[in-house]
């Protein structure tokens, strides 16, 4: 399985798109600096917001343009047959693929973290400390790490869809739908706590959303991004709960994927 992990990593690194993605943080951080320059007072907060946006763009690009086509190609080109002829079982094949992709993803995230810290250093020559007070390297790195946790669970979603999908279109559309749901649903639950918003939603739907709000952890990615952008620190329990939540999603999806893939008629 170790060989398959490194084989997958090699495949991703050799892809031209991935190399371009490794360069993208530099261009995106320049855009972030330009965007920050449009504001007046809270420049540190805007800069951190821009870096988190960059992280989401890169993670989304890796999910939709690297992970999904990569897995879809395994179905379409029947590449699975070639790999399964090696002395590995189906579970090892699936987990090996996932870990290889995860390693490439972590490489991308590390590049982004380095560029973000360098860009933050650059801002000290452009703007006064007074305006940049809320931005600090620790919070930026922590924010990027937590965003990547969320996308790791979305990569597990892509793998789960791959384990039963019949073609690339299914992998692409289902993964995108779940990404969209994860983008929209938690902010809606948080927004529902506002009296103006609650008024606009029919009572039955309101009860359903309130039920979901009570069931799910209240600390969303959006809240974390806002807190870190304002220079506030997150408590250890908040960080571990958030990581535990997304690790749990990832593990559950991996278990389901292996169960489905084992019974799949190839």
């Amino acid at each position, binding site marked *: 399985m170790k060989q398959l992990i490194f084989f997958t990593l090699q495949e991703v690194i050799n892809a031209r798109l991935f190399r371009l993605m490794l360069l993208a943080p530099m261009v995106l951080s320049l855009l972030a600096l330009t965007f920050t320059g449009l504001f007046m007072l809270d420049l540190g*907060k805007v800069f951190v917001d*821009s870096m*988190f*946006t960059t992280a*989401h763009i890169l993670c989304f690009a890796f999910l939709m343009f690297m992970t999904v086509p990569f897995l879809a190609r395994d179905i379409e080109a029947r590449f699975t047959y070639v790999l399964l002829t090696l002395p590995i079982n189906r579970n090892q094949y699936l987990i090996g693929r996932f870990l290889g992709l995860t390693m490439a993803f972590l490489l991308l995230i590390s590049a982004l973290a380095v560029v973000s810290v360098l860009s933050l250093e650059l801002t000290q020559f452009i703007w006064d400390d007074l305006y940049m007070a809320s931005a600090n390297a620790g919070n930026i790195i922590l924010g990027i790490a937590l965003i990547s946790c969320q996308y790791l669970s979305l990569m597990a979603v892509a793998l789960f869809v791959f384990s039963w999908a019949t073609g690339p279109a299914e992998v692409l559309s289902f993964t995108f739908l779940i990404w969209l749901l994860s983008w*929209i649903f938690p902010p809606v639950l948080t927004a529902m706590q506002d009296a103006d918003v609650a008024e606009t939603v029919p009572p039955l739907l309101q009860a359903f959303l309130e039920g979901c709000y009570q069931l799910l952890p209240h600390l969303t990615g*959006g809240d974390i991004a806002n807190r870190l952008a304002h220079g506030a620190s997150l408590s250890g329990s908040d960080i571990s709960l958030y990581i535990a939540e997304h690790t749990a999603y990832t593990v559950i999806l991996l278990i389901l994927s292996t169960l489905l893939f084992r019974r799949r008629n190839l």
Partner: protein
Amino acid sequence: MKRISQWAMLPVLLAVAIISLAIARQAQPPAETSIIVKPYTSTGYDKLIRSMQAGMLPGLGADLATLEIFSGFYQFTHNSKELSQQPLRESIYRSFVISQFLDPQFLDTYRLTEGILAYGLNMPEQAVELLERGSQQLDHWETPFMASFIAYDQLHDLDRAIALAQLAGEKSDVPPLIIGYTARLINNTLGTDFAIKYLEERKRRLHKGYQQGIEKRIIKLKETQNAITSKS
């Protein structure tokens, strides 16, 4: 050789395209600024839709709403048509509400509330409400202080101004100015002199493009002061 000549043609064609575009632009009459005010149903829907759009990046949503305030105010100051002024003012106010809703701790929103909403757009009631809500979220004396001054200067609501000044006094790192200000408010001895000095200080901190409203208020206060002096 043929290949080289093909490449050499590229900058020539590019130059021709740029020159043609420049000539075409020169020939065109200047386009009228058209004002598009976004469709609006209710504050709740507005907040819900913007939360969905911003998703995991509410801070970015607030930043974009602030940029809408900048562009809306630019249109407001450069548009002479009376008819479109009112919907535009309301649209800018909604951007303030959204920006605060998505990121209640974003300081630029509050700075603009004072410069644009209270004085530029002449919506002091809405400005004080917004700053009051912000004061509950921020441990920052400046926000309730701004609200207190607007309540005193524009709304002439002394009780509200005193309550907000006292709230400013409860925040951390309060300068001695607040204690003096609150005392003078309670004794109702603030006067136009203080108001002018305060507004001049605030104006100095704002970008030139957003000083217009405060400038108008300073002129008005100076006129009142002169009238009082000449009477006495």
